[in-house]
């Protein structure tokens, strides 16, 4: 029989057919389960977590399929265990960074400090998380390029996630002249903040005189905006505040020094006699 033909060791054509069938079944199950999970959990789980869950499920199915396939193609799992000790040592050294990234990737998926679509700052690199894979994470920086960051680096890095919270606060320091009315300036700034549709009513904005600086009275404005909108609001509102203050005659001063000339501290003056000679008779 053709199916009983031994190809190598005890592996027959039939075994290879079974392997192929198992592989096909694994692929079909993975595809079907991924599709089902995406549909079923679409409204219940956010997109980032859903993709991670689907990936973990897919990898698990493939690992199970692999464990079934290996004995069929002549690889004995018991033998693997023995050889695994030596091979594991060698592989361990060789793939130290890969394993490190993989473990870090798993911990990132469990801890979830970032999610797909979040705007994050990872050790000074700011970008949008495009994908979280098992070994690495892809960021799209704001100037366009994609950046692949190994998961081990992310796991040990300082991460600032700008999208974790629904609202975010930003701050301006606005210096006005000492001769200007600070109360009036505060009123103008508060009115502008209130008129802007995207600044939040609650938490309430705070506007107050923070310090009496060398050159100006410094007013601080602390404003909350939706996390997705804060940057646009910040860039838009500052110029409006500057224009509104100037319109009311309140100016933002330049650094300046006031120099006083006290009468008693003037430099001594030397009297020159009319003859052009001093008291000792020398010509000046």
């Amino acid at each position, binding site marked *: 029989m053709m199916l009983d033909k031994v190809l190598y060791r005890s592996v027959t054509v039939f075994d290879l057919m079974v392997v192929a069938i198992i592989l096909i079944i694994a692929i079909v199950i993975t595809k079907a389960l991924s599709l089902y999970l995406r549909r079923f959990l679409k409204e219940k789980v956010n997109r980032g977590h859903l993709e991670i869950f689907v990936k973990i499920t897919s990898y698990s199915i493939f690992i199970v399929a692999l464990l079934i396939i290996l004995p069929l193609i002549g690889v004995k799992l018991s033998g693997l265990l023995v050889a695994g000790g030596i091979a594991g040592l060698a592989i361990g050294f060789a793939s130290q960074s890969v394993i490190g990234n993989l473990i870090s990737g798993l911990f990132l998926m469990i801890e979830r400090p970032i999610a797909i679509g979040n705007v994050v700052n990872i050790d000074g690199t700011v970008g949008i998380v495009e994908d979280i894979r098992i070994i690495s994470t892809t960021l799209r920086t704001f100037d366009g390029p994609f950046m692949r960051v190994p998961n081990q680096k992310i796991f040990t890095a300082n991460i600032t996630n700008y999208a974790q919270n*629904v609202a975010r606060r930003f701050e301006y320091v606005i210096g006005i002249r000492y001769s200007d009315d600070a109360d009036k300036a505060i009123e103008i700034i508060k009115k502008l903040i209130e008129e802007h549709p*995207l600044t939040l009513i*609650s*938490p309430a904005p705070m506007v107050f005189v923070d310090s009496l600086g060398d050159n100006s009275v410094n007013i601080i404005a602390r404003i909350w905006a939706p996390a997705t909108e804060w940057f646009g609001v910040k860039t838009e509102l500052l110029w409006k505040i500057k224009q509104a203050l100037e319109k009311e005659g309140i100016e933002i001063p330049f650094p300046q020094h006031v120099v006083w000339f006290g009468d008693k501290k003037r430099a001594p003056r030397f009297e020159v006699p009319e003859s052009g000679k001093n008291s000792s008779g020398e010509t000046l």
Partner: protein
Amino acid sequence: MFGQYDIPIRIEQEGITVSVQKEGENVFYMRECLGESTEKILVAGSGKLLLNPVEPVNKPKALASHLLIEFEKTMQVEPKGTMNIFLTFPVEIAVFMPSNEEFEVIDAFTLARQKFTLYGDPINGVICKYWKSRIYTAEPSLNRIQEGIVGLTITNTTTGWVEVTKAVFNAYGMKIFYDDEKLSIKANMKLKVGGSAETECMNEPLVEGMTKSLEMYTVRKLSVTKKNFIMESGL
């Protein structure tokens, strides 16, 4: 202003101008409202246009899916008591273009003040569209282009007095009804033990004979599983 119109049409009301004119096979849409204008060329059209009040969470940006109505004065509700009050809500108007038994949203505008707020804390809270309202004990007479009426039934299920200063509604559950005089939402608010409350909008008009408005989320084919809202971060 609300209802279905045949194209070409030009509507001018209270500073709002909506104009839809045919230019050859295309349709030229223009709208002006409070100094903001939009112009669009629609390649195909059914020859009809629908103007409808919609959930007031789309302008200036669709950032929120909840509406927070803050009461001008604090309310105290007696133990096991029920109160019927009327509030106001901001009106947003959407322009729909019917096509093959479906509706496409082509524009939205409002005359009402647009402002957002945070209900809860920045970590677990929700961004809400904000509106401040007087509390009325009888149906107020309002300009239906700007403000609608919320008929709110507040039920205190606790054994103590409860102070209420605001109500948060899930916009996906809002059912807006209109007639020639007013625009309305009917809602319930159940005050619960522990300082929380559950709000829900009813699928029924304030008075019989009102027309149900088209909902934005059904037009956009969004599948919505939750239509009520649990207020757990303060009343």
